[in-house]
C-alpha cells in the first residue's frame, strides 16, 4: 500500500439532467490525503463537497480527472477500491425495521468481518456513539440525532482504511459531536484515513489536521486552520460596538468588517495597542478575541463570490 490514501487530480463533474441546464459541480478539484490524516472539506451549499465524496467512494462517475485510493484507480477498478472504503452518506438513514445493533452487525458481516470481531466492534461503536441504551430498539423509534449516531456507528465500526463522512454530525447534540470527534481521532491513530464534510467550522478546526475550502467546484484554499486564518490578514479580531464613525481610521490597521453597528478589525497582535487607544479616545469599548475559522471562511469565500460577481 502506498502512503497516499487518496489522490485526486483535476476532477471534474458536470451533471446533465433532461430538460434542465447542465450543472458544473466540480471544475478541477485536486487534493491528496496521506494515510492516517483527518481532513475536512468545507464549502457553501452546492460547492461540490458531496459530489467529490461520491466520486472518490466509487458511487459516481466523474466527467474527467483521476482519483486513486491507495493507488487503485477509482474509475477503472472500483472493485479494488470498494473494500478499502466506507461511507456515511449525506442524509442517510438506518434501516427503520432493524435495531442499531442489528444494523451494525449485519453491515459488518456483509463486509466479510467474522462473527466474533463483528460483535466486539458493534459494542465498541455503540458505546463510542453513546447509543447503548437504544441499541436494541427499532431505529424507527429513535430520535433524529440518535438515528444519525447509528449511521455513524455503522461506518466507524468497519474501521475501513479510508472513511468518507458527509456531514456526519448533522443534528447531533454537542456531546454526540464530541463522541464522533473522539472516534475519528481514535481511528486515525489506528491508521485509518478520514475525509469529512461539515458546516460546523469549530468541528472542522477541532478535528482536522488540514482543510480544503471548496467554492464553485474548485479548491479555494488548502491548509491548516491557522494557515487559513492567516489568509484574512491577522489572527486577532477587535470588536468595537458603535464604531462606525471610526471605520476610515481603523482601516489602516487591518481588514474591516461591519455587522450591525459593530465594527470588527482583523489584525495582528502588534497593532492592538494603537487600536485600543483610538477607540478609548472616542470613549468606545473595544474587545479583543481570536479570529475564528468561521470568520476566516466567511471572508475568504465572500471575497471569492465578490470577485466572481465583479
Amino acid at each position, binding site marked *: 500500500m502506498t502512503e497516499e490514501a487518496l489522490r485526486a487530480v483535476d476532477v471534474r463533474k458536470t451533471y446533465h439532467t433532461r430538460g434542465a441546464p447542465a450543472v458544473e459541480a466540480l471544475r478541477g478539484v485536486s487534493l491528496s490525503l496521506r494515510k492516517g490524516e483527518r481532513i475536512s472539506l468545507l464549502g457553501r451549499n452546492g460547492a461540490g463537497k458531496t459530489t467529490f465524496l*461520491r466520486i472518490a467512494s466509487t458511487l459516481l462517475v466523474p466527467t474527467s480527472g483521476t482519483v486513486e485510493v491507495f493507488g487503485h484507480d477509482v474509475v477503472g477498478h472500483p*472493485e479494488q477500491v470498494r473494500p478499502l472504503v466506507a*461511507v456515511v452518506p449525506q442524509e*442517510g438513514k*438506518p434501516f427503520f425495521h*432493524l435495531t442499531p445493533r*442489528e444494523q451494525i452487525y449485519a*453491515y459488518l458481516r456483509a463486509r466479510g468481518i467474522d462473527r466474533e470481531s463483528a460483535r466486539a466492534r458493534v459494542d465498541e461503536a455503540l458505546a463510542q456513539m453513546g447509543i447503548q441504551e437504544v441499541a436494541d430498539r427499532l431505529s424507527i423509534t429513535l430520535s433524529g440525532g440518535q438515528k444519525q449516531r447509528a449511521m455513524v456507528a455503522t461506518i466507524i465500526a468497519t474501521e475501513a482504511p479510508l472513511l468518507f463522512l458527509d456531514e456526519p454530525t448533522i443534528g447531533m447534540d454537542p456531546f454526540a459531536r464530541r463522541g464522533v470527534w473522539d472516534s475519528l481521532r481514535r481511528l486515525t491513530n489506528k491508521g485509518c484515513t478520514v475525509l469529512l464534510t461539515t458546516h460546523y467550522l469549530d468541528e472542522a478546526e477541532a478535528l482536522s489536521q488540514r482543510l480544503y475550502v471548496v467554492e464553485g467546484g474548485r479548491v479555494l484554499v488548502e491548509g491548516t486552520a491557522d494557515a487559513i486564518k492567516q489568509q484574512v490578514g491577522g489572527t486577532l479580531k477587535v470588536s468595537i460596538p458603535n464604531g462606525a464613525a471610526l471605520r476610515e481610521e481603523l482601516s489602516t490597521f487591518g481588514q474591516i468588517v461591519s455587522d450591525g453597528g459593530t465594527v470588527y478589525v482583523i489584525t495582528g497582535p502588534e497593532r492592538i495597542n494603537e487600536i485600543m487607544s483610538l477607540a478609548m479616545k472616542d470613549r468606545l469599548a473595544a474587545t479583543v478575541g481570536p479570529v475564528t475559522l468561521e470568520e476566516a471562511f466567511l471572508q475568504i469565500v465572500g471575497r471569492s463570490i465578490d470577485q466572481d460577481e465583479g
Partner: protein
Amino acid sequence: MAFTLRWTGMTTFLATETRVQLHEWLAIGTGSLVQAALLVFVWVLDPTLLPLTVIGAMVYSVFLIGQRVLNEAAYIRIDHKLNELYHASPMSPESYFLGMSMGILIAYTPPLVVLFVILEFLYPMSLAAVGMLILALLAVWAFSSSLGYYISTLFTDMKTIWPYSSLLTNLFGIVPPVFFPLSLLTEHVAWAWVPALLVPTSSATALVEAVAGMPEMGGLTTTQYLVAGGSLALEAALMLLFGIYWARRTAREA
C-alpha cells in the same frame, strides 16, 4: 469485463432483508388479499376452477415479490441511501441485488405455503407437477425481481413509483390467463395462446396446470409446451442476467 460473480456478504444481506420484511408482516398479509378475494369469488361462482385459481394465486404472489423488490430497492436508495453503504463496500452489486431479491422471496414464502396446502387439499399433485410448480415459481421470481430491480433504478422519487407498479401487476397478473384457464381465452380467440404462453406469468401457470393434468385447463400440445417452457426459461434467465448486469452498472451513478 469478465463475468465472474462475487458473493461476499450475500447471505448476510439476504438475512437482513428477510428480517426487515418480516417486521412488515402486515404487508405480507395484505399482499395476499387480492388472491384470497379471487379464491372466494371462484369458490362461489365455479368451485371446479378452484385448483386452477390457487395455482394462479401462487404465480401472482410470486410476481408481486418483484414489486416488493421494486419498492424496497427504491426506498432503500431514495429515502435511506443505504445502498451507498453497501455499494461502497466489499459486497458486490450482484450480491446486493440477489440478496435483496432472495431475502424478500423468503419473507414472502409463508403465504405460498398456505396456498400450497390448500392446493394439495383440493387437488393432490403428482411429484412431477410439484417439481414443475417450484421451477415455474422460481422462474417467475427471477423474472419479476430482476424487472422490479431494474425499474427501481429509474426513479428518483418514491411517489412516482406507484402507478408503474400497478401497471405491471395488471399487465402480468390480471390481464393474461393467470387466475383463469387458458382454454377460456382460446375458446374465443384461437391464436390467443401464442401471446399468453409468451408472457412469463401465464406460461408458468399453464405449464403447472398442464403437467398437473387439470382437466379444466384443456392441456397443452407439444408445440405449446415448447413455446411455454422455452419462453419462460429464456425470459427468466435473460432477465436475471440483465438484472445482474444492471445492478453492476448502477452501483455507480453516471
